[in-house]
């Protein structure tokens, strides 16, 4: 399954319009710096980054579905591979990996690692900002995107290169599968 997804990821990436990676990295850095200046409280910045990501994710999922040939994922592990191999490749140009040992018994929680992360290039975190989740926007994107396909998840960063780890690691937990609520008309 992973091999198919990887091929799909590469196909989609080839067809995508691309922008300059440094421009992207530096723009993101500027956004985070501005948020810190505006909010001053690091926890608040984390929340805002996640919220921004959430709003991006709500829209990003449609573009993702339109451009890739990925249909509905039948199980959560398939969703995980799709995010890692196709999603990240399509939008960030890097491929993530799902850690096979990170699955819980019910298959509702997994860890995804990014060995390369374009967002954190050139970035150093000063000591007084050690609680900043610099890549929190990605957590929001995953949450927003999956909500639009009927999954409520929680995503948090468990390892960060800015804090000395060698990879960026996200822990994603499926909380609930949402069902369609059809509004009953008055007729």
């Amino acid at each position, binding site marked *: 399954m992973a091999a198919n997804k990887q091929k799909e990821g590469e196909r989609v990436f080839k067809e995508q319009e691309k922008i300059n990676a440094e421009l992207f990295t530096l723009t993101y850095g500027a956004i985070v710096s501005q948020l810190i200046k505006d909010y001053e409280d690091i926890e608040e910045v984390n929340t805002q980054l996640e919220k921004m990501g959430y709003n991006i994710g709500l*829209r990003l999922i*449609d573009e993702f579905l*339109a451009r890739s040939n990925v249909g*509905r994922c039948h199980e959560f592990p398939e969703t995980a591979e799709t995010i890692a191999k196709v999603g990240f490749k399509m939008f960030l140009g890097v491929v993530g990996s799902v850690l096979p040992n990170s699955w819980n018994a019910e298959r509702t929680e997994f860890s995804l690692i990014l060995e390369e992360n374009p967002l954190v290039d050139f970035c150093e975190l000063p000591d007084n900002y050690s609680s900043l989740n610099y890549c929190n926007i990605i957590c929001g994107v995953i949450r927003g995107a999956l909500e639009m396909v*009927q999954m409520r998840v929680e995503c948090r960063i468990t390892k960060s290169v800015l804090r000395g780890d060698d990879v960026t690691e996200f822990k994603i937990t499926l909380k609930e599968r949402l069902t369609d609520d*059809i*509004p009953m*008309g008055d007729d």
Partner: protein
Amino acid sequence: RQMCIRDSINAEYGVFRTDRSARIRRERMIFNFYIFSRNGTCLYYEEWNIPKEGRTPKAIQEEQKLMFGLLYSLRGFITKTSPKPCETFTYYKTSRYKLHYLETPTGLKFVLNTDKDAPTMTDELKKLHQEYYVEYALKNPLYKLGEPLGACEGFNSRVINFLTSHPEFKRRVVH
């Protein structure tokens, strides 16, 4: 061979047939296009080639609600009764029109009604999703998700242009 026998019988009994070469004229048409959100809001509606009598805004709104209800029920019915597992349907056809359908995993429903002999419009629906909805509505920062798309000028004008200049939009087909 069947034709020959029939002709000879006709010739024998002097039955007047209408000229076998009488051409059947048929009109290819696109009638209307809907986009529904997951919760039933009609995000977009345009119609063409339909006589205007009795089409008050209220009537059109009722029709939209009816259409959504039908699609929701139909899809549910089809997926439950299908002998092989399936997720959705592509079109249905009546003696008067053909309804083409595309549903995205995000719950967006794209509906195109054409005359009954139109070819499948799945590619057109996919294009409407990918090249028009994604590019001009989703990526428009002023467009709020879930709101009607009529106000989204870029989207509106391009969709109308795309559908009205489509070869199936309105043409006489001669058989």
